Each structure stands twice: as structure tokens, then as C-alpha cells.
């Protein structure tokens, strides 16, 4: 993804496609779309990822979560036929100024979260999947089955604070 963002590397993008297109299709089909409609979404989502690549910030998000976010936005727009309200974008620090520790830290937190997900019972796993595919309402999502979100939250927050600090110095 970094190669896609910084070098506009099409080979790297093709790899991204190979991994995400079949999964994005599965996600769209799951919400009741026909196969051809789902493939349209896949194209739109990945094209958006290509075009908005400059906004990808590895200090704050993993590639999968960034693509997940684009996909959910697109799907909500389609269902509601109006723009989904999205938070203001934060400015990005210079790419060559990225804090490798922060990026690595987020990666580690994410793999720990992944490991935690894999220890869930089958029933819990199904609930998590349903919740994040948008199949549960806010009142049905209780505590998101006790996932250990605290550490990853503080890791992401660190990236945000750093970003905010830099923005302040720019002013």
C-alpha cells in the first residue's frame, strides 16, 4: 500500500486487488447483492483506494481497516442513496517523516487483536462477523463480546496526538 501511495506502483496495486477483490466481493454478496452488483462495488472501492491513497496513514490504520472503511462508506451511500456523514479528515504528516515505531506498534497491536479474535468461540466469532458486516443494530451490539480494544485504541491515539502536535507546529 505504501508503494501504491508513494510510487503509484500499479504492480503493487494489482497485488492489493488479488487479495482484497474476492473478499470485498464476499462482503457485498453477504449484504444481499447480486454477483455483478458486488463486482461493481469491488471496482469502485478499489478505485477509491487508488485515488485516495495519499490519505492512507500507516500510523493510524492498517490497509485492511482502511479498505474496510472505504467499502462500508460506499455500501451505506448505495443503500441510502445519500452521502454517509464522515468525520473531517486529518492532515497527514510528510510521508518521509513517518514514525516507524508507531507504525510497527500499530502492526503489533493489530496482530494481538487478530490473535484475540482467533481465540473466540464459534458463536462469539459469528457475532463479531455479523456486527462488523453491518448485520447488527446498535442496540444489538452490546459490548462487542469483550474484545480487548483498549491497547489498540491508545496506540492509535498516540498516532493522532503526534499528528496534532505536528499540525500545531505548522501553524
Amino acid at each position: 500500500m505504501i508503494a501504491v501511495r508513494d510510487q503509484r506502483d500499479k504492480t503493487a496495486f494489482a497485488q492489493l486487488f488479488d487479495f482484497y477483490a474476492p473478499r470485498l466481493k464476499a462482503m457485498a454478496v453477504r449484504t444481499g447483492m447480486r454477483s455483478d452488483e458486488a463486482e461493481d462495488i469491488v471496482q469502485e472501492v478499489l478505485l477509491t483506494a487508488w485515488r485516495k491513497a495519499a490519505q492512507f496513514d500507516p500510523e493510524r490504520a492498517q490497509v485492511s481497516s482502511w479498505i474496510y472503511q472505504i467499502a462500508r462508506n460506499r455500501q451505506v451511500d448505495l443503500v441510502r442513496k445519500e452521502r454517509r456523514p464522515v468525520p473531517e479528515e486529518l492532515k497527514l504528516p510528510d510521508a518521509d517523516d513517518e514514525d516507524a515505531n508507531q507504525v510497527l506498534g500499530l502492526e503489533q497491536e493489530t496482530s494481538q487483536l487478530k490473535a484475540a479474535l482467533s481465540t473466540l468461540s464459534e458463536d462469539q466469532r459469528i457475532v463479531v462477523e455479523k456486527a462488523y458486516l453491518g448485520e447488527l443494530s446498535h442496540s444489538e451490539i452490546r459490548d462487542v463480546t469483550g474484545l480487548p480494544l483498549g491497547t489498540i485504541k491508545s496506540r492509535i491515539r498516540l498516532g493522532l496526538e503526534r499528528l496534532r502536535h505536528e499540525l500545531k507546529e505548522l501553524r
Partner: protein
Amino acid sequence: MSDIKHHIPENLIAAYASGALGHHFALVVATHVSMCTQCRAALAAHETIGGLVLEDLDAQPVSMGVKSNLMAQLDAPIEVEPAPKRMGAYPGPVMGALGGDVPKWRSLGFGSKQSILHNDATGSVRLLFIPPGQAMPDHGHNGLELTLVLQGSFHDEDGAFGVGDVEVADEDVEHTPIAGNGPPCICLAATDAPLRFSGLVPRILQPLFRI
């Protein structure tokens, strides 16, 4: 803005991340996240799980032409729609809902005003403008109500709410928010059901004001 004390509940952030949250609440969540680092981080954490769920889905084969079709579009010129920009007390998502324009206020009497941003069978979201020291009509709730302070402050039976704070009220809450001293209180308020007013007059006015 680091002194925000009242945040969006976790389940609403998760529902927003997954796209399951209705439009009215989604606007409040997106606006609060624009103002709050803590909830921005929480949202990103939920999106991380979303990403892991996505990675884990059983892949579905994609038709032959999709990839080449997409690759062929990469060099096409891009029409980027600029994201709505914050204006004064109104963060980007609110400006988006206002269509980039200033709010069209309608009087609620006694100097209070509202501007309905969106209203349909599933609920409503509006801006409220309350002069310092003025009370909102006393009311209960048939569903959930989120009230986010954009300017000034208010207090009620549940506590004090300043800029960036969200009050979460449900069926059990009957409250009378009163705007604090200082600048007029401007709130973004969303509900998924009509409010119940306890006073007679507001009940008569209810259909008129679509509260």
C-alpha cells in the same frame, strides 16, 4: 478540545463503523469524531476489527474482466469532490448536511431556534439554538436521543455539557436542558423517535415544529 467529558457510547461507534447506524445518529457520531481524538481512536480501533473480519472472509472468485477493467481506469483523470469544510462552530459533517450553507433557523419561541437537517420515519437530526439561561422544553424520549454541543454549554439533571460533549438520553430520561451563561448554546440533536413533552403547550406545538 481535550476537555470533552461525555463521549459516544462504544456500541454506537461500532455500529457507525459497520455502517449499521441510522443516518441521523451517524451524523452526530461523525461530527463528534471530528472534534474528539479519543473517539476517533475508538472508531479506528473498530475499523481495525472490521478490517480483520474482511481479511478473514471466504474469498469469492471475481470475474475475469474486473481486474483489467479496473487497471485500465487508474490513469483516468479524477474528479475529487472536496470534503465539506468546517465553518465557525459547525464541523465538516454538519456543513455537509447544511449543503455548505448557513443554517436556516426557525423560531421555537423565547429566542430559541431550530434548523432541521434531516427528518424521516426513522428519526430526525436538527440544530438547536438556545439563548443563554433558556430552557429547552421538558421532555421524555420514546427512543434514543443524542445531543452534541457545538457552541456554548447546557446542563440538566444528568450533568453539565460543554463543547464536544454528547448527552445520551433514552426512554428512562426525562430532562430539562438549560443553556449555560456565555455564548448561545448550539447543539446537534438526533433522535430515532419523536420526543414526548410533558407540558401541554409544547405537545400542541409538536406537530408544528416536528420535534
